[in-house]
């Protein structure tokens, strides 16, 4: 006679077990794996300066990805981020032509980012329009303004101390951008995981109506999230413009999809309601390591896109398949 009694656990998985099976652990393992593979395939990979150079491939995008993660967790999206970079950069470039100094440029970059974010937030929360439609519209609008202002011209002549943001080093190989990335990551970790505001973001993403009835001011939270995304785009615009030392309307073209990819790879549900900042941080490193590692092998960019695509599908599909097999 076979024993048909089912095993019923008297408690949930231990905290350690849960952590080991978490998305972040999985991603971290992937990141470490890629790091090891890179070290073996290219003799140039393990070099402090080279690893430092690598971080520039993702720091600016990751800054925006943190704000985007919160927005996606809350069930909204902002596809205009790359265009906000273009507009903020164009505004800074125009200001340089009339002799504005570095502090003024930073304020203009942040200000344009905030205004664009507020515009998106207004259309979504006050007019009740779907964010994907609004931001596809403003994606064309913001970059369109840059094209009208600049055409095929470029702004250059940024003050020499402005170059610190994108080209400066704080200590040895630790770049200013990387330090900024770390600070912003920490801030977003605290906001999302340690504050009431963060709990509200999750609540809205899981059930916006329920959140509303629980006394959460849904529209206001969403508006703030759009403001934050705009602000982060402004910060990224300052770093990228400083790194390029020039502005063209095509600046940061196509970044919005890379940023969304980073967020989704980081374990944020595209349907909203779940995700974490550590996941996005590791995803940023994974994408940076993959593109840089393949770059060292002089793999053409199109193959890199294929690898990133496969990685995204693989990392998302495999845990689900595993669950299925285990069941």
């Amino acid at each position, binding site marked *: 006679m076979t024993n048909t009694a089912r095993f019923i656990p008297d408690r949930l998985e231990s905290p350690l077990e849960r952590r080991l099976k978490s998305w972040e652990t999985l991603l971290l393992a992937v990141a470490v*794996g890629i790091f090891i593979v890179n070290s073996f395939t290219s003799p140039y990979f393990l070099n402090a300066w080279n690893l430092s150079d690598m971080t520039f491939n993702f720091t600016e995008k990751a800054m925006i990805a943190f704000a985007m993660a919160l927005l996606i967790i809350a069930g909204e999206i902002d596809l205009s981020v790359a265009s906000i970079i273009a507009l903020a950069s164009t505004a800074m470039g125009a200001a340089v032509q009339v002799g504005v100094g570095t502090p003024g440029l930073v304020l203009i970059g942040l200000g344009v980012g905030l205004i664009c974010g507020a515009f998106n937030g207004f259309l979504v929360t006050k007019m009740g329009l779907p964010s994907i439609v609004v931001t596809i519209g403003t994606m064309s609008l913001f970059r369109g303004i840059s094209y009208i202002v600049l055409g095929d011209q470029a702004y250059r002549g940024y003050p020499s101390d402005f170059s610190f943001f994108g080209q400066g080093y704080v200590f040895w190989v630790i770049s200013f951008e990387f330090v900024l990335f770390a600070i912003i990551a920490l801030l977003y970790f605290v906001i999302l995981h340690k504050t009431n505001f963060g709990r509200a973001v999750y609540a809205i993403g899981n059930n916006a109506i329920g959140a509303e009835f629980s006394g959460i001011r849904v529209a206001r939270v969403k508006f703030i999230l759009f403001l934050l995304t705009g602000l982060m785009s402004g910060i990224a615009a300052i770093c990228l413009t400083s790194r390029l030392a020039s502005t063209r309307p095509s600046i940061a073209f196509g970044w919005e999809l890379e940023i969304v990819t980073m967020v989704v790879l980081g374990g944020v549900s595209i349907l909203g309601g779940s995700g974490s900042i550590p996941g996005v941080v590791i995803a940023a490193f994974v994408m940076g390591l993959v593109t840089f590692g393949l770059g*060292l092998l*002089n793999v053409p960019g199109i193959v890199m896109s294929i690898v990133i695509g496969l990685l995204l599908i693989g990392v998302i599909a495999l845990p689900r398949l595993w669950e299925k097999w285990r069941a």
Partner: protein
Amino acid sequence: MSITRRLFGGTAIAAAMLAGSAVHAQDDMRIALVVKALGIGFFEAAAEGAEEAAAELGNVEIIYTGPTDTTAEGQIEVINSLIAQGVDAIAISANDPDAVSPALQRAMQRGITVISWDSGVNEEGRMMHLNPSSTPLIGNTIIKLAADHMPDGGQVAILSASATATNQNAWIAAAEEVLPNYEGIELVATVYGDDLSDKSYREAQGLMASYPDLKAIIAPTTVGILASCQAVSDAGKIGEINVTGLGLPSEMAGCVESGATESFAIWNPIDLGYSATMIAHALAAGTATAEPGAEIPTGRMGSVTLDDTNAAAMSDPFTYDASNIDQFKDIF
């Protein structure tokens, strides 16, 4: 099999497949040819020229690379990875003369020879720039193309882009300067088609109506030459009027075949990649220095001389006719 090993497997296989290409002899000089974007015929042809130069020089490895789309950010990532690999030289056709400059300056600080070709980088960001040709050379070539097929002399007219087009105006001025060197050639008119197909077509028709004895139309613009060829064909004047100037082989193949165009010119991407590689090699090996007035040998192309801004012109534009159009029409 654990979940992590499954994931490892995927990336490891991808990486292992690519690992083979990383192996190279350490003492080879590595020259990176960085282009605006991969998959463009013009640049594939330039890479062919670079390989030819590498074979001629020996012990040179060409790294042909570039971003997927023509962005400055993409090129900077490529440059960063080349700096990391410690290549000996970078020869770049830049997507943006200013944006890639800081990254290239960093490359030079780390001892890498940096030159630009085709599309230049600002002066701080490169040691020298190789132009495919120069204004006087182009001006001379467009007249010579017409004169070569006019042994008895006769009337020619120029169909340009817009009246304010800087490049075309400079070329036409240079052409007028050398005109006295070509006996019997008379320039009767210069008209402007604004680089619009239909307007260029009408201007070409106008030229044929105004000057019945016209022997050649010279169009130093890819739009104008194609429209003129069409107008001459439609008027049934193939053989009477020769259309020449600057055009793209892919677009001009039909005109050369029909006989409306005896020959035309444009820079040759193979020669350009070849010369850029030769110069990068000479500078990286220390057999030449990039300074105003310096003469740098470029193998079968002869040599180039640097001007005050450390820029140089490669050669006359390359002439395409029935004998070589088939070879180039698929390239660009």
